[in-house]
């Protein structure tokens, strides 16, 4: 058998291991909360076991050695020799972190045990060997009825076993690690040399393990070949009869075990796909959408007899296009649980550090989001959660004094609303300290006074950049660390973030995000000969403004009355330097848009209609343009630019400052 380049499996191993570590962490956290499900313990054990196996296969000895000890500790728990105590959970959680780090270093090509991992390895070993009870004694105490001195194992692999990438020799070595092992091979099925297929397994083995290992541990060795062999494991209660012929296992071909590992671990319900491939596909579908809308404009110029057929065909094309588009888009969609899953650990660690009692309530974890959005929403959410626990939720004594339970609740909830995803992060803590925020904002010159501001308007202040300093956090009992960064990140995703808070009753952050970044709903607006697309999510309303509802401000600014507010008018032909045909305010249309929490009125000639736009990058071949977020292709094949509302608001702000 030819030598297999194992390096090609490294990435798969790495990804699978990280998934395993995630599963392990979730199971440990559930165990920490007192769930008594033996399956959870098995999940942890299996994760450690397969990481160890994989690491050993690829020669990542550090990882394998470390995981081995962690696995042993877990095995003690699994076999009932050790209760699942807090200390064990804690140690295993930390081990998971270390393994994660080691794997990352390994993949980056810088293997090596850190001082931290050495220290933890020491702790693990100490617990495994010493701990509360010696393993052997514990085994006896736990199961006095079954005094096991060893195991007899009859192992008859099916002939295709080697082809599945399993190597009996490796399994025997694993058994050998538990105690003295004897192996004898039954050669009776061996065909004449000429007929022999070297990749078939002809041998059967009888094994004798002279150690009081637990049945689960022995069975664990054969986990991977379950169903690929006949296996009988009988405990040896009497003194072991030494098996005569100790034949070394035949030199089996070095098969790519990783293939099997990957296959066994990955769930049938998910597929890893290169993001470039999907992007191409989305591009193609985008083209198809354009073609379809191009075609749909033909149906009045056709001979009447063909009209009905054409109409039917077009309807079908339209339906198929839509379906295809939806299904392709869905490839990019992943449940938000991939992001939410990191929070139980974060909340646990933070609560422990700050001596607070917190229950994390996750809801709507199956809500799906675009992968790009998912990748970028994690950090802002971490920020909000940290803030909620650090500043929002009170310590138990303070909660009791306020007449609440000593345990605070942090709820994260995701759900669909319209064409958007909403993520709410709410706590039942102290809420924002209105007076302190107002005082701070006045001091920083953001507002003149807090009179007449609603609580929510006061809450908005914490998103101002001036609040992101360390001084602000110590002065305020509320929040404030980097909230402007949170808002900026959410804005970059085309979303919005809002806050509502009741002093004494907690705070709720609401993040609204578009389902995907690749397609937007937009309003097409004409300015002279040009067409611009205004993202629907930013639009508040389109209004026709009468000349007497506008005011000019010294310095050239122009305001108009929109309900109770005076909003600045931004004339698009002015900003983009094009030939708008309409100058008088009552001739055109003002689109009231909101970006970064500020409203402005965009003045355009007229509205053309609403359409879905496949977002294309302008930067790929050109560069960023202020006030423009990208481009799209219209039904006639021409290019239209998509306005960047947040950018226009910033431009307007700069204008004001000038």
């Amino acid at each position: 058998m030819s030598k297999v380049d194992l390096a090609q499996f490294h990435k798969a191993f790495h990804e699978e291991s990280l998934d395993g570590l995630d599963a392990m962490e979730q199971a440990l956290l559930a165990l920490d909360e007192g769930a008594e499900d033996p399956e959870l313990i098995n999940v942890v054990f299996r994760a450690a076991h397969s990481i160890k196996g994989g690491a050993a296969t690829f020669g990542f000895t550090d990882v394998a050695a470390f995981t081995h000890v962690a696995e042993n500790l877990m095995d003690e728990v699994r076999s009932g020799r050790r209760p699942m105590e807090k200390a064990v959970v804690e140690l295993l959680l930390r081990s998971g972190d270390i393994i994660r780090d080691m794997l990352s270093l390994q993949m980056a090509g810088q293997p090596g045990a850190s001082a931290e991992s050495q220290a933890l390895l020491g702790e693990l070993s100490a617990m495994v060997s010493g701990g509360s009870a010696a393993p052997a004694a514990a085994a006896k105490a736990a199961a006095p009825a079954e005094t096991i001195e060893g195991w007899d194992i009859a192992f008859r692999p099916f002939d295709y076993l080697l082809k599945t990438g399993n190597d009996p020799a490796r399994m025997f070595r694993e058994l050998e690690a538990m105690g003295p092992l004897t192996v004898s091979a039954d050669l009776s099925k061996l065909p004449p040399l000429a007929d022999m297929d070297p990749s078939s397994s002809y041998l059967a083995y009888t094994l004798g393990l002279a150690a009081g290992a637990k049945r689960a541990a022995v069975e664990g060795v054969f986990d991977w070949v379950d169903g690929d062999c006949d296996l009988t494991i009988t405990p040896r209660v009497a003194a072991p009869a030494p098996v005569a012929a100790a034949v070394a296992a035949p030199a089996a071909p070095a098969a790519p075990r990783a293939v099997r590992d990957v296959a066994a671990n990955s769930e049938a319900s998910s597929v890893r796909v290169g993001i470039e491939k999907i992007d191409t596909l989305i591009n193609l579908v985008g083209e198809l959408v354009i073609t379809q809308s191009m075609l749909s404009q033909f149906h009045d110029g056709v001979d009447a007899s063909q009209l009905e057929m054409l109409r039917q065909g077009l309807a079908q094309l339209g339906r198929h296009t839509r379906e295809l588009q939806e299904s392709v888009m869905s490839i990019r969609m992943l449940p938000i649980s991939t992001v939410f899953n990191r929070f139980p650990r974060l909340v646990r660690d933070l609560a422990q550090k700050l001596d607070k009692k917190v229950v994390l309530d996750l809801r709507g974890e199956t809500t799906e989001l675009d992968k790009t959005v998912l990748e970028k929403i994690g950090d802002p959410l971490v920020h909000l959660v940290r803030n909620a626990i650090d500043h929002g939720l009170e310590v138990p004594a303070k909660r009791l004094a306020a007449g609440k339970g000593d345990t605070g609740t942090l709820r994260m909830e995701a759900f669909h609303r319209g064409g958007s995803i909403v993520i709410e992060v709410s706590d039942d803590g102290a809420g924002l300290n209105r007076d302190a925020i107002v005082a701070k904002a006045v001091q920083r010159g953001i507002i003149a006074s807090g009179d007449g501001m609603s609580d929510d308007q006061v809450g908005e202040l914490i998103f101002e950049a001036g609040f992101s300093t360390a001084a602000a956090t110590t002065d305020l009992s509320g929040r404030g660390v980097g909230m402007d960064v949170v808002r900026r990140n959410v804005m970059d995703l085309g979303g919005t973030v809002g806050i509502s808070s009741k002093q004494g009753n907690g705070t709720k952050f609401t993040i609204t995000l578009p389902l995907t970044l690749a397609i937007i709903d937009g309003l097409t607006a004409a300015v002279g000969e040009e067409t611009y697309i205004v993202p629907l999510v930013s639009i508040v309303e389109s209004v026709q403004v009468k000349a007497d509802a506008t005011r000019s401000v010294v310095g050239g600014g122009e305001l108009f009355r929109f309900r109770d507010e005076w909003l600045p008018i931004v004339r698009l032909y002015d900003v983009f330097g094009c030939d708008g045909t309409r100058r008088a305010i009552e001739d055109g249309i003002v689109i009231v848009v909101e970006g970064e929490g500020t409203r402005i009125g965009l003045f355009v000639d007229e509205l053309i209609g609403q359409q879905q736009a496949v977002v294309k990058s302008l930067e790929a071949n050109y560069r960023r343009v202020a006030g423009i977020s990208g481009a799209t292709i219209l039904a006639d094949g021409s290019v239209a630019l998509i306005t960047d509302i947040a950018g226009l608001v910033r431009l307007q702000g700069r204008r004001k400052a000038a």
Partner: protein
Amino acid sequence: MNQPASTAVVADEAAQYLTVNLGNEEYGVDILAVREIRGWTPVTRIPQAPSYVLGVLNLRGAIVPVLDLRLRFGLAREEYTATTVCVIVMVAGRQFGVVVDAVSDVVEVSPSGIRPVPDMGTTVDTEYLKGLTSVGERMVLLLDVDRLLQPQDAQMLEAALANTDVKAVA
């Protein structure tokens, strides 16, 4: 094919150049950088672009900027006619279109046949030229396509814009 245009000259073998006309002058564009040649079609103007960037067009789904070579060199803009073409080039992974009066020929130029451009004191900035060569009686100016749409340009523009757009709209 993806070789940067400028390194093609380093090899001692003759390189092929697509020659294009601009007024009475003939310019050479490294053929390895040329993706396609298309007729002139209207483009979508981009705000805040330098005058020589005419706008963007849809090249099979990609948004590609188009620049006018005459304007790039500070010449007067000509009316676009039936022979006006847009040469799509790819430089460092970026595509852009270059509008010229006409395309004329493909010529072979050996590295030894390239002479430095004398400082002619003309409107054409020698900065955008790699050199000049003779093809029979004709003189061909070899374009340094890499420099036609430079990032520095964009940065300078950005800096200038920070001031101008405030003034423009205030």
